């Protein structure tokens, strides 16, 4: 079943790379929403339910960790799997992200195979 994905990254180039990697990983995308930071992503989610969120950490205005902390209060985002994609490789970032509900953590640079490995299991048979 095609899924709706939200890609959150302050780099438009990286958003396009992530989308391409999802397609290369064999994930069937019905719709892709984009946001340049966590605050924009929260606005997108108010109007658009999604099945998957991929999120950078270091972003202006609202970073990825603050964004996922706020997700439980967003009606459209409850139980939506979040996978972090970031250059931040510290264990403390990984632990914090996972403790706030992230289901996966991918370090940049990455391959489509890594995207598949971390994202597909979060979809629970969708896509």
């Amino acid at each position, binding site marked *: 079943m095609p899924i709706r994905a939200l890609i959150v990254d302050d780099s438009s180039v990286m958003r396009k*790379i992530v989308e391409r990697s999802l397609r290369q990983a064999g994930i069937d995308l019905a719709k892709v929403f984009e946001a340049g930071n966590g605050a924009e992503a929260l606005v997108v989610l108010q109007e658009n339910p999604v099945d998957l969120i991929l999120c950078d950490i270091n972003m202006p205005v609202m970073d990825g960790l603050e964004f996922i902390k706020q997700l439980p209060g967003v009606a459209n985002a409850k139980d939506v799997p979040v996978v972090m994609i970031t*250059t*931040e*490789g510290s264990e403390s970032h990984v632990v914090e992200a996972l403790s706030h509900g992230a289901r996966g953590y991918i370090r940049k*640079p990455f391959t489509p195979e890594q995207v598949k490995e971390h994202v597909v299991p979060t979809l629970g048979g969708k896509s």
Partner: protein
Amino acid sequence: MKSVSELLAAKGTHESWLPLLETATREVFELMLGCQLAVPATAVETIPEVTAMVGLAGQLCGVLSVRCDGKAAALMTSKMLGVALDKVGPDVSDALGEVCNMVAGNFKNKIAGLAESCMLSPPTVITGSDYSLHSLADSPGIEVSLLFEGMPIVISLQIHS
């Protein structure tokens, strides 16, 4: 994997950082652009028409930069986006900034303890070659020159003690 303290103890030449910086750069190009970088047979010179910089702050302070000419930057963008070279538009600065960001992140993640204790700034990108960069770095820094599809790219790390 070497620790920060081991590497900082070797400051003065920082030669031990060079292979880490080169490996970090190669991995970014292999994984994100799908291409191998080559080592130039002789010293290369390039007019840096595009310069991307990322600051490092914390246990290691400094500036990491990636410099190349406009043609190389456009080709990097083309490969990152998977579009034809003539379709590359205003994304060049964004693309080179992301390359620099990933090289900096990958580099610090290769040094034990540095991933936790060193933060990266958002990338800054300068286009044009008529500029002088004055860093407050108090060490000579390190520099790696590689060939991307036959075109030189220069990766520099200026280090503050």
